[in-house]
């Protein structure tokens, strides 16, 4: 009898059964699905790097690539924060707690946490982009002595779409310095208004020479964030971003997720900015 890992290595199309243990509504249109692998042993043995993703599978509907937004050390489940946008995620949003789905993963390259040792870490997120960064924040806050200061710069369209509000307060109590900004202010909003790169332009309390930056958000936001970061003196090789492309196989076999020389599914989704700099500004690549 093959072990589970060997069977998956043998055939990358093999999905594992997972069950929705809980659903936490986040911001409008977005919810976190707390998943438990049906096989208890596999659930316990599952492990991932912050920034990696799973292929979630609804039989008859299809698969979708979703980054893990928290590991089992948080709430005992493997969590995915998802916006109901495409056909799979919309169908997922209809599923009740206890429903089953398939899961393949984890795949891809995650955030380079080891590179953060002794450095100020600036986490920059736009909208739902905070989800793939959340496990990295959890890992950073779990060992605060290993790094310098930790900043979170978070932007969203409106105040009510700023992700994980309650948890962000807890992060701040643990020493993370958070700033938020919105594109459109409502009358009760007293914070920053404007795009995220403006927060990078104004950021104080970090040493550019020893800072590292993780970015995830809409591609245009990431492009401008990189520009701002470079202007602030952060070296391109210490700016990392998570990219999104159409994903079908997640294991480098189907060709969908090409981005210049990179396969987003294997070389990414987290990529070092200098390695893809020539391609990031090219329209329609």
């Amino acid at each position, binding site marked *: 009898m093959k072990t589970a890992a060997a069977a998956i290595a043998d055939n990358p199309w093999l999905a594992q059964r997972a069950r929705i243990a809980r659903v936490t509504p986040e911001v409008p249109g977005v919810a976190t699905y707390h998943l438990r692998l049906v096989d208890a042993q596999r659930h316990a043995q599952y492990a991932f790097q912050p920034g990696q993703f799973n292929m979630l599978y609804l039989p*008859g*509907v*299809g698969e979708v690539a979703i980054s893990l937004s928290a590991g089992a050390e948080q709430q005992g489940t493997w969590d995915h924060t998802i916006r109901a946008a495409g*056909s799979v995620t*919309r*169908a997922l949003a*209809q599923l009740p707690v206890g429903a089953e789905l398939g899961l393949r993963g984890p795949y891809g390259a995650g955030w380079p946490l080891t590179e953060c040792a002794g450095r100020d870490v600036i986490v920059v997120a736009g909208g739902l982009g905070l989800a793939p960064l959340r496990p990295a924040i959890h890992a950073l806050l779990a060992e605060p002595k290993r790094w310098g200061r930790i900043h979170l710069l978070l932007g969203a369209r409106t105040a009510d779409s700023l992700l994980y509000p309650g948890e962000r307060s807890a992060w701040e109590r643990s020493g993370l310095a958070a700033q938020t900004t919105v594109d459109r202010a409502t009358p009760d909003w007293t914070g920053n208004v404007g795009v995220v790169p403006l927060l990078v332009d104004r950021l104080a309390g970090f040493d550019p020479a020893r800072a590292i930056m993780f970015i995830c958000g809409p591609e245009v936001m990431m492009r401008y964030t990189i520009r701002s970061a470079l202007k602030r003196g952060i070296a391109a090789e210490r700016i990392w971003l998570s990219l999104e492309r159409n994903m079908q196989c997640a294991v480098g076999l189907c060709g969908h997720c090409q981005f210049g020389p990179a396969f987003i599914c294997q070389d990414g989704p987290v990529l070092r900015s200098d390695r893809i700099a020539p391609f990031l500004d090219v329209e329609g690549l």
Partner: protein
Amino acid sequence: MAACPRLAVFKFASCDGCQLSLLSLEDELLTVADRLDIVYFLEATSRVEPGPYDIALVEGSITTPDDLARIEQVRRDAKYLVTIGACATAGGIQALRNWGDSAEFLRAVYATPSYIESLATSTPISAHVRVDFELRGCPIDKYQLLEVLQALLAGRRPRLPAHSVCLDCKRRGTVCVVVAQGVPCLGPVTHAGCGAICPSYDRGCYGCYGPCAQPNLASLTAQLGANGATPRETIVQLRSSFNGYAAEIRAESDRLELPPPGGAPHG
């Protein structure tokens, strides 16, 4: 369990061939009937129930003043409106009248033209009401229809490829008739769906499924016409078909200033 979704099938100017696809789903029809309540389908049953309907399949184009009123009502009654076939999605072969003088056609065909109430044009359903999904083809493919129904039952978007016929030729191993035999073929600009039947019988595709996504008609007609390889009449014929009034094909016709179908060729 909640009641089955209510399905209605409507016909406008058309030959009925597309709605018959539903009946020709022989093996699957019973399952379809189990999961959908077919409450209006004149071709199959005299049972006629008023709206609202969950799914309306609409065949045919709009050619009469009565059609205009009726399609509005269908739209009001239908939660999800799917147009089926080239008539409903592009105006059909009868849209060739759009290039001619419809009054003259009426005089030529009917003994008493004044009895006929007809519009000057044949237009697709989407020219009049919002359409939720278009199923292409002349006639439609029954398995594509099944996919649409399955998708609606599962609460997802239908998955139907928008690629060219060429891809399907290659998947089934058919040799390109353009390259190997010099046969004029609309495959490179035609929407997949038929399974690439004609080229597998050494015939060129004549575009039953209408233009594919982002078709490059100008390049294809230039290639067909290069060195007189394909006579202009053939290009006109290829254009003057069930999908001739589809926006992309119409635009290319206008660009080439092709003579109206039935009219005298240039030069």
